[in-house]
């Protein structure tokens, strides 16, 4: 695989992904982290606070997009490329609850040259996640640094 192939996939997207947010997984996540706020693990407490069900903690919502790693490597020719993570940012637009059906896809949005000890480029991926109501719940921007000298 080569940097040229990556450039050719600028603007392209992974196949769409779909998933259902399972209540038991949200509870497992909250328990593993020993979260204290009951809206993350107690349905009655979450409903009392005005939510539809247990809330997905931001860390859990973000993990949903990690399932795209394999598809990204394949679609954007990243397998075997010398690359490192360059950062992530999230914009939240709606609350995610247990039982929500999420769907989304990842686009290679930008490629910029970076200055450093080694010649490198920053690949900026944008992932948009929507719920069953058609609302965008989250957009994720992830930067991957690829080195051009290998």
């Amino acid at each position, binding site marked *: 695989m080569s940097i040229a192939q990556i450039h050719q996939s600028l603007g392209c997207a992974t196949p769409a992904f779909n998933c259902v947010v399972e209540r038991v*997984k*949200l509870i*497992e*996540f909250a*328990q*593993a*982290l*020993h*979260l*204290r*706020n009951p*809206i*993350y693990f107690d349905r009655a407490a979450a409903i009392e*606070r005005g939510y539809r069900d247990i*809330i997905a*903690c*931001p*860390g*859990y919502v*973000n*993990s949903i997009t*990690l*399932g795209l790693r394999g598809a990204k490597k394949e679609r954007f020719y990243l397998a075997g490329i010398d690359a490192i*993570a360059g*950062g*992530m*940012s*999230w*914009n*939240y637009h*709606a*609350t995610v609850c247990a039982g929500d059906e999420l769907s989304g896809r990842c686009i290679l949005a930008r490629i910029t040259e970076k200055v450093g000890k080694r010649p490198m480029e920053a690949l900026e991926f944008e992932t948009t996640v929507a719920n069953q109501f058609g609302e965008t719940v989250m957009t994720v921007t992830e930067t991957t640094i690829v080195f051009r000298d290998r």
Partner: protein
Amino acid sequence: MTVRKDRPPLVCPVVTSVDIAWVCVATSDPNPLHLDRDFANETRGYKDVVAPGTMLIGWIGEYLGDWAGGPENVANWSIRFTSPVWPKDQITISGREINRVDLGRDTEISCEVTAAKVGGGEIVARASATLRIPFNDLISD
């Protein structure tokens, strides 16, 4: 609701390999760097399994959500990991307000959050966030 300029630190529980495995199960993350000490040592030279970033994201996410009066008031945030977290580490999350803008119906608060190891203070992640608090919910101190 009061949104304080400097929120009290959150001392997270000591990281254990069991909790790491549990997080991996919950998030369907099979990365052996988080689960297999021998693999982590032989492939990366790590002394132990490394905690997944989702643990820090989860703790910082809860911290920001509580600060904002609910996760729905966290408009956006970003994180940069600066150092690995190992089993037996304990993390403290602390944050401070950087700027506050009155938008009429809402108040937008920019803040910085730091996650650091207890004992030594090594910073493991830095985050910046924007909290958007409905005006009627806000009583500033």
